[in-house]
């Protein structure tokens, strides 16, 4: 990268790298809290014993292994995926409001799950995963294809419009099904909130490969997104294949958003908020925005989950609710504080 001020640029890069390291430490800390804190009080000694010398007879040990560990892993993976998906979508569409919910991905996942429950009688969370994944991918592809029609391709305004149209259409069908089938409503209302609870190891194993591919793909799009952020004409004049860049970014976003929605339900605020915060710290440079988003989002998600677990014992508040209450005011404050860096 050619920079006009190499020295200050290097210093800045070093500071950003240090910041990344700090975030990694915070991720570990929040994972520690996630394993040790819960609706059931379990001492640190017991946690340690459970991790080192597992006793299948102990309820406490089983809770660590069967509930908290998978839940923490799901939280880390889904958080990273949501943060990256939001950043990639915002970069690729040059739209500050791009987010899995705005582009219709959540609605697509919700429709397929509702159809699965209502029509096929599916009730296992492990099956939701596949339904949501297919639904998210289909919705995103349809939205992108419609927005890509015509000469100028998928422009930000057309993407947002197509996404909003898709969401409204899908939600209408979902509502029609939910209204006539209380059984489905009863099943789905808990999935719709967005929650990390009840996600066992099997779900981790199912979504982890998708998330791993998506994360790698997203991280390599940094340079392309930087090109796109200068505008299509500039990107083209720099020799970038704009269509191919968008396609790769779109693929990464579909995989990440689809798999994370499948695993945890539609958690709306993480993908929208985190990239803006990351951008405020790193400046408009996607090679930094992406890793920052990837580490900041799990901190927000797992932190919100831990808060939800302990805030109203003996019950729990779903993480999707906590992230909205933590994320939305933060987002509003951000909007108020400055004009968001234009994308």
């Amino acid at each position, binding site marked *: 990268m050619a920079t006009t001020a190499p020295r200050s640029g290097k210093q800045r890069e070093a500071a950003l790298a240090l910041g990344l390291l700090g975030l990694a430490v915070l991720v570990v800390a929040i994972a520690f809290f996630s394993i040790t804190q819960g609706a059931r009080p379990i001492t640190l000694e017991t946690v340690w014993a459970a991790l080192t010398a597992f006793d299948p007879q102990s309820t406490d040990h089983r809770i660590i292994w069967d509930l908290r560990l998978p839940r923490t892993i799901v939280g880390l993976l889904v958080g990273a995926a949501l943060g990256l998906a939001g950043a990639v979508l915002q970069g690729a569409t040059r739209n*500050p*409001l791009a987010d899995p919910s705005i582009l219709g991905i959540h609605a697509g996942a919700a429709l397929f799950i509702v159809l699965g429950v209502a029509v096929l009688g599916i009730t296992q969370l492990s099956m939701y995963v596949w339904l949501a994944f297919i639904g998210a991918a289909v919705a995103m592809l349809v939205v992108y294809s*419609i*927005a890509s*029609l*015509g*000469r*100028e391709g998928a*422009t930000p*305004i*057309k993407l*947002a*419009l*197509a996404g*909003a*149209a*898709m969401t*409204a*259409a899908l*939600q*209408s*069908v979902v*509502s*029609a099904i*939910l*209204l*006539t089938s*209380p059984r489905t*409503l*009863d099943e789905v*209302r*808990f999935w*719709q*909130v*967005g929650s990390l609870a009840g996600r066992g190891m099997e779900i981790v194993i199912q979504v982890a490969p998708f998330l791993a591919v998506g994360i790698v793909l997203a991280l390599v799009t940094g340079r392309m997104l930087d090109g796109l952020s200068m505008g299509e004409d500039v990107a083209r004049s720099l020799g970038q294949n704009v269509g191919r860049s968008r396609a790769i970014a779109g693929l990464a976003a579909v995989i990440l958003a689809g798999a994370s929605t499948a695993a945890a339900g539609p958690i*709306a*605020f993480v993908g*929208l908020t985190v990239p803006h915060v990351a951008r405020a710290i790193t400046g408009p440079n996607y090679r930094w925005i992406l890793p920052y988003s990837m580490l900041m989002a799990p901190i927000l998600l797992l932190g919100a989950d831990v808060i939800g677990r302990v805030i109203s014992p003996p019950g729990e*508040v*779903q993480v*999707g*609710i906590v992230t*909205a*209450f933590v*994320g*939305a*005011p933060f*987002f*509003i404050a951000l*909007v*108020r504080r400055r*004009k*968001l860096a234009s994308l």
Partner: protein
Amino acid sequence: MASIDATTKVQTIRRNLASRRYTVTASLVALLVLTFALALYLGDYHVEPAGVVRSLLSPFTGDVNKGVDFIVLNVRLPRATLAVLTGISFGLSGIIFQMLLRNPLASPDIIGISHGASASAVFCIIVLGMSGIVVSFGAFMGAILTAVLIYALAWRDGVTPYRVVLIGIGMSAIMAAIMSFLFTRARLFEVQQAMAWLVGSLNAARVADIAPLAIALVVLVPVTVALVRGLDALQLGDDTATALGARVEFTRLGLIVAGVAYAAFATAAVGPVTFVAFVAGPIARSLLAGSGKGFVQAGLVGALVMLGSDLVAQHALPSVQLPVGVVTGVFGALFLLWLLIASNRAGRVN
């Protein structure tokens, strides 16, 4: 010679535009009357067209047929009237927001006002155990409070469309989270009741819902018409309009209040019926093809969309009565997709 020629041309264009405006408006009114008549005639309870007319006149003629009169006067007439009034309100609310915020996405159902009404209504149903007209009042207050909150939060040396939209979306997320939370804490039948409200339905149309809405429209429409005259200045853009100073700010504020009030009254009466506010403005404008701001026409289109969708919702499937919101959602989505494809072909949309 040349200048006279140009003047004539301008006059001809003006005349053509005006005549197009009248044609569009008259066609919309005619179509609305026709649909309204159809709404009074169609139904599971068979009534001959003559029977409908007799029923409508029965309060004056005294020619009473209890069963038929109940269906025509107590079921179909209030329902169709409510559809028209809420349709007008949604349409006007939508075009006001779209004009002020200069963004086709910025209808009240996108920028958080409907969500505020919804969250408030769900709270009334689930936590306070209310139903009926009290829920409507709760929804109304929710819409107003949310709008005030969005405006206050977006205020920073004035209000920019950009901040209003973003903060509105933030508020929507909070409201959606509140609703989801309440859903998981409620008994299933309460969730069903809340869901039915959220989709928006004319099934429970009551005279009690019509009166406040009718009064609101009688007060608001003249006020809005007066304010809209000031909108031309606004539409030139903030920089130019600033010259007019406080009057512009006042007009803008007045229109926002009116837009919120339309949305609040309509949502309180029938629930947050999606997409009516969203599509009314764009449809009206594309019909007018540049021959007017489309304000009146947006109201008419809104009424037509609402009434037509309700007819489809009631009669499309033989065994099920869908809530009107399901049909408007699908209709609105199809409209937008068509718009995208059509403008793609023409290569106009940026």
